[in-house]
């Protein structure tokens, strides 16, 4: 190994002799053309510079050399919000299996963020490529050949099969011991069996047609592959505390100080492109403001808040010296006004439709601040779902109070006045009153309160519907509450609104319910049909049809989606915009960024 470095450095020295003088530019020392990669030529120039004018210090030179040779250099400090985001998150292991977003473990595939309106793209992780049978009943993954676990054990297809079997055996609620229910096992629910024809090929046989299996594997943080040689003997994930964290990822587990710090270091034997950063330290700040102060002070290099920084804070950081902001379009949460379709007055479709025209999205977005984008599509977010969005349904919920009043009148509602205030009388002649529970998933950054503040102006002030905000209720009763109230708010973290398959959210589930208590026979049938077909054209057709039904029936009103903001020390690291992915993409992000200041090397 070392021999190779010496060889490379010798080459550099040789280049140095031939080089001519070009002044070093800002950014990565030695980088003169601004591509954040130091070419050998640039490096040579830099070295010469160093020797002749002393413009670069030895540390800066070392940084440039490391970048040029793609050798890990320096320490990146990442702030996280809460100790459950630190590496030894045992909580993840016993709920979900090994965490795919920890920089240590990897799954088979991960998802790239699609270009707006473009198709979905996936990126191989431990799988080099994959293919499915025409009926999407069999998926074959060809694995990378040079991957090894951090303890040196070679990675093979047996590990993948083991992962499936582990989830199969421990995803069972009857499994012995409390907390042994691995929720991610749902991801493999549709898998009938796994075959390993050879060490680097895995074949999944599905129970039913699964055209989106890679999507399923990459959903959320993605499902990571378990090291079979470590987990083989562990029956109860809830009682096993993993201290070694053996994965296959670009970074290997270093050390941890409970509750506050953990560290991973670049893994020498990584099968893919090695990271530029030698160490990634995660530091816990319970308070988001403390994170921001720490970034400003230079204690940390990267902060992302819990669902991205709030727009206001990102805005305030934008002009701070040495700090850069990156924005992921619709990468934060998406919010909706949801109906419980079997609770009066949400039982009346015209009422739901009327209210859909009485949501002033622009005003909500104005309250929320930068990065909030009004959603004019039906349920799917264009930034995420790309070409799956049915353009015919766009704008069907536009803000139009007159239309709202017409819809209400059509359903027998009567808008009267009392003491100079509008009062809406229902078809039964009684004033309409809606109770809205706050909290739940829309409470981040008080979005639920912002929405209700705006709704009150229109619903109360113009449509005469009395709104009662219930005292904030805790999560355990929130579900009970929303099942009993006609209207509530929901916020979906991550990429919920991204795929037509996700429209099954509105299907009457085998258990008899869905979140919206929505029950439309045609819709239910179409979803079943969608799930059993692999033909892309047919799927698109069904998807469009589903969206039309939703636009007509309005079980929920999409309000806005929120861009995710993250902030970083631009004076220390560059390359942040390279390949921002959603979900498990942070691994990729931290492999892509490059140190730009010698300072980061001195810390390590």
């Amino acid at each position: 190994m070392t021999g190779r470095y010496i060889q490379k450095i010798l080459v550099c020295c040789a280049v140095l002799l031939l080089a001519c003088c070009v002044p070093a530019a800002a950014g990565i020392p030695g980088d003169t053309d601004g591509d954040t990669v130091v070419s050998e030529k640039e490096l040579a120039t830099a070295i010469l510079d160093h020797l002749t004018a002393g413009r670069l210090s030895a540390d800066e030179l070392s940084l440039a050399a490391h970048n040029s040779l793609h050798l890990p250099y320096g320490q990146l400090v990442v702030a996280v919000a809460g100790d459950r985001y630190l590496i030894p998150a045992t909580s993840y292991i016993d709920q979900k299996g090994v965490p795919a977003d920890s920089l240590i473990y990897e799954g088979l595939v991960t998802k790239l963020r699609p270009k707006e309106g473009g198709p979905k793209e996936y990126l191989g992780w431990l799988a080099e490529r994959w293919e499915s049978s025409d009926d999407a009943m069999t998926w074959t993954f060809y694995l990378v050949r040079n991957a090894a676990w951090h303890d040196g054990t070679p990675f093979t297809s047996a590990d993948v099969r083991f992962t499936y079997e582990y989830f199969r055996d421990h995803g069972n609620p009857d499994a012995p011991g409390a907390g042994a229910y691995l929720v991610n096992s749902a991801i493999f629910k549709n898998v009938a069996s796994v075959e390993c024809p050879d060490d680097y090929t895995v074949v999944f046989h599905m129970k039913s047609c699964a055209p989106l299996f890679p999507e399923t594997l990459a959903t959320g943080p993605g499902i990571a592959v378990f090291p079979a040689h470590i987990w083989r003997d562990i029956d109860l994930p809830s009682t096993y505390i993993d201290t070694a964290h053996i994965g296959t990822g670009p970074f290997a587990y270093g050390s941890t100080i409970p509750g506050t710090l953990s560290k991973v270091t670049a893994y020498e034997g990584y099968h893919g492109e090695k990271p530029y950063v030698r160490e990634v330290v995660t530091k816990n700040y319970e308070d988001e403001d403390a994170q921001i102060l720490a970034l400003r002070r230079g204690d940390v290099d990267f902060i992302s808040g819990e669902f991205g920084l709030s727009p206001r804070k990102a805005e305030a950081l934008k002009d701070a010296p040495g700090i850069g902001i990156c924005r992921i379009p619709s990468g934060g949460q998406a919010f909706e006004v949801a109906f419980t379709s079997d609770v009066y007055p949400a039982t009346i479709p015209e009422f739901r439709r009327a209210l859909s025209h009485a949501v002033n999205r622009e005003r909500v977005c104005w309250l929320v601040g930068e990065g909030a984008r009004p959603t004019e599509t039906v349920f799917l977010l264009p930034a995420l779902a790309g070409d799956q969005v049915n353009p015919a349904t766009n704008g069907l919920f536009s803000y139009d109070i007159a239309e709202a009043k017409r819809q209400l009148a059509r359903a027998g509602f009567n808008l009267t006045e009392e003491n100079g205030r509008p009062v809406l009388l229902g078809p039964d002649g009684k004033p309409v009153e809606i109770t809205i529970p706050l909290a739940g998933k829309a409470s981040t950054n008080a979005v639920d309160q912002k929405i209700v503040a705006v709704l009150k102006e229109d619903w109360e002030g113009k449509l005469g519907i009395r709104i009662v905000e219930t005292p904030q209720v805790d999560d355990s009763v929130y579900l009970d509450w929303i099942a009993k109230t006609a209207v509530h708010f929901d916020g979906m973290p991550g990429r919920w609104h991204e795929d037509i398959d996700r429209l099954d959210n509105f299907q009457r589930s085998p258990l008899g319910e869905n979140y919206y208590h929505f029950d439309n026979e045609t819709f239910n049938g179409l979803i079943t049909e969608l799930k059993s077909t692999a033909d892309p054209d047919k799927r698109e057709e069904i998807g469009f049809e589903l969206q039309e039904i939703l636009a007509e029936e309005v079980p929920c009103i999409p309000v806005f989606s929120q861009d995710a903001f993250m902030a970083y020390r631009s004076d220390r690291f560059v390359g942040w915009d390279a390949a921002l992915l959603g979900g498990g993409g942070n691994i990729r992000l931290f492999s892509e960024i490059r140190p730009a200041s010698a300072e980061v090397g001195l810390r390590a």
Partner: protein
Amino acid sequence: MHKKIVLAASLGIVFAYCAVALLAPVIAPYDPHAITGAPLSPPDRDHLLGTNDLAQDIFSGLIWGTRATLLLGFVGAAIAVTVGTAAGIVSGYYGGLIDEAVMRLLDVAMTIPIFPLLLILTTFFRPGIYLIAVLMGLLGSFQGVRLIRSQVLSLAVADFVVGTRALGAGDGYIMARHILPGVLPLAGVKFVTSAQHFMLIGIGLGFLGITDPSVVDWGQMINRASQNGAMILGLWWWLIPPGLAVTLISLALAWLGYACEDEINPRLRVMRV
């Protein structure tokens, strides 16, 4: 002289707060829940203390918040003192088994940490602001019992009490006419100190985000401000005024309590926690 100024000033502050609380609808320029301008706008003529992230007027919120704070403090203290005094008088006057029982119960009750219990109860039951005040009052009444009891113990053997009893007065009469007036000043001081204490606790609950969100209170304002980055964004007009408002009333009550205590008995010790 100096003492009188402090006393007058603190009384003045308490009355001013009460007046503000009563006249909130008149004084406050806006409905504290309404969107009244641009979100997070700095102070100007329309919004004396700017607006918060919901574009609500902070000054109006501050005015309305007085109500919640005073209510928590005074209702809580009234309950704590009433219960504490009643239990203290009964226990101290009758003595014997009753006293023993009350004291043992108190030993047990005082061993359970009150604030964490209050936190847990409010977290899980989400009571309205009145219930929180009652809960605080009940949980906070324990210390008062001991204080009052020890005073009653000395009063119960005082000549005038023994004399009244010799005249054939009933226990109820003696307790109401002779013991109660004797412990009232002490109860008064306890009321003031408890009110201060409960206000701080009440605002602490708001700060932890577990009070009734439909009621405007300073704790929630501070919480909201710090959650929404008032510190980072430099929105001092959002973070500082509610803190100062609490400090001022709590200070006034502290001084008042101290002055009263000094007045009724300079050597008296009122236990505070």
